[in-house]
């Protein structure tokens, strides 16, 4: 990176099924004001606003960001990479700082999916209308198709994912951004009913609304502000065509080649040689337990064949790395914001501002984002030190 930069402000609304007490602009302003307060900055200090909103049809307002995120007198653009929207917006904001175009950027993502009376219909509309939409694909069946491959290839079991979901539900009780965290047991997951085999109802993140905002500052503007230094940040695209990604020389569908490669790039930039030994914490963007486990090996925190064993070590509390201390997207999954929240949670932990979910000694953390038909991946490495 040509200029060093850090996250100096984080602001989040609560995440809940419906924010019927606020319109979209009000929701955004709440997160923005909190982020600016956290950063001890005024809006005047911001040289760029980047908005993150995934499909407009979830909110039912075309270009919902026009009236809710863009601010008069400040350059603005919007990013949409599906579930990776929030982290992609972060990467886009960072480029302006790296290029020296401004010294402080505000990145904001908002999810308004509570407006959608039939959200699954919207999720079906993201698929190719020529060859695939008629097959009734959904974002959930995409997760389930991958899960069957993870069973085939690595031997994961439905029981393991149920235990992971239960473990995350336990952690969600400590996360004060969640209005109504749900605690349940592995048995509850297994008896909650199959939505799309092998996925059970309770391992799927709930419909969530809310906004997340972050302030990124160039080194010269960090000063004495508590900072989470951006040590590495990378994003990568793959082909949309899932049928072309089932088994390739570079890796199978569930090996998430894009995530593996952008994590490797971010680690190189950060000077991380052995992530399994050096990284203190990961926030993996995954709306389901099975997709969370799909992220372990690409992040280099376990070998591919060790995935199921690594999952067990997370569940029984013996894993060296703190995995999703926020409870992850399984506790709240506001689509447009969810990948930004993963970075925000890493920044809060490094800055010692994570409240009841604070984990001691977090000095190096990695956040991921996954979007589209798992075709967009991002990896961001944050550290307590600038280098």
């Amino acid at each position, binding site marked *: 990176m040509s200029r060093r930069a850090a996250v100096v402000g984080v602001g989040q609304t609560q995440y809940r099924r419906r924010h019927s007490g606020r319109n979209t602009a009000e929701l955004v302003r709440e997160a923005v004001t909190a982020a600016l307060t956290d950063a001890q900055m005024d809006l005047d200090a911001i040289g760029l606003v980047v908005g993150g909103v995934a499909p407009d049809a979830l909110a039912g307002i075309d270009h919902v960001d026009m009236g809710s995120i863009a601010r008069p007198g400040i350059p603005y653009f919007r990013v949409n990479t599906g579930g990776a929207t929030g982290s992609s917006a972060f990467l886009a904001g960072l480029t302006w700082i790296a290029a020296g175009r401004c010294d402080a950027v505000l990145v904001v993502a908002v999810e308004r999916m509570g407006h959608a009376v039939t959200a699954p219909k919207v999720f*079906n509309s993201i698929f190719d209308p*020529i060859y*695939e939409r008629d*097959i*009734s694909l959904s974002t959930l069946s995409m997760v389930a*198709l991958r899960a069957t*491959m993870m069973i085939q290839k690595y031997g994961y079991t439905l029981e393991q994912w149920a235990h992971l979901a239960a473990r995350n539900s336990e952690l969600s009780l400590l996360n004060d951004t969640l209005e109504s965290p749900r605690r349940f047991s592995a048995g509850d997951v297994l008896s909650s009913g199959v939505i799309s085999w092998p*996925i059970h109802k309770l391992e799927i993140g709930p419909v969530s609304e809310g906004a997340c905002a972050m302030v990124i500052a160039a080194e010269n503007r960090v000063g004495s502000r508590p900072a989470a230094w951006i040590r590495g940040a990378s994003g990568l695209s793959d082909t949309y065509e899932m049928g*072309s990604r089932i088994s390739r020389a570079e890796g199978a569908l569930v090996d998430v080649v894009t995530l593996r490669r952008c994590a490797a790039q971010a680690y190189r930039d950060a000077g991380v040689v052995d992530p399994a030994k050096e990284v203190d914490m990961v926030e993996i963007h995954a709306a389901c337990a099975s997709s969370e486990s799909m992220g372990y090996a690409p992040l280099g925190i376990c070998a591919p064949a060790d995935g199921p064993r690594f999952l067990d070590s997370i569940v029984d509390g013996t894993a060296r790395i703190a995995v999703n201390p926020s409870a992850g997207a399984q506790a709240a999954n506001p689509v447009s914001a969810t990948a930004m929240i993963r970075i925000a949670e890493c920044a809060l932990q490094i800055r010692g501002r994570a409240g009841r979910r604070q984990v001691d000694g977090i000095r190096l953390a990695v956040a991921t984002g996954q979007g589209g038909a798992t075709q967009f991946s991002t990896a961001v490495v944050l550290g307590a030190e600038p280098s």
Partner: protein
Amino acid sequence: MKDVHMPNDVELITIPGNWNFDYRYFAGETASRFFAELKNSRRIMGTRCGKCRRLLVPARTFCEACYVETVSWEPVGEEGTLEVFTIVAAAFPGMPPPPFVIGYVTLDGADTSIANFIKGVDLSDIHAAGKSLLSRPRVRTVFSAEVQGRITDFHFELI
């Protein structure tokens, strides 16, 4: 100035709306030809990349990996392998009544997989059905009695 008196509580207003736009999606020449072959000859065709030599199914104008135009049309086998699948067991608006199976199949001769419904699976026990499909079973292409030049003109059945 004194505040105008207003009640403390307010009833939150929700304004109804809908977004029912109609569209016509232009399939383009290559997909149109693929659908014509389904409808007129009841066969599934792929296109081959001249660079990486992969046979892409369904047919594509260009290879998405090499970003070069495909060079030839070739039929693929009627049978193939079910690579990944899911059994949709809950009802969703706009979708067929559950349970139903969808999956990606690599037809014999093809280098990519194609999505479609997998029928003829005993779904009386979802978990047993799921486990039985994990073995990457062989499937056969079955055409509908009425074909209309759509991807739904065929589905797959276990052999």
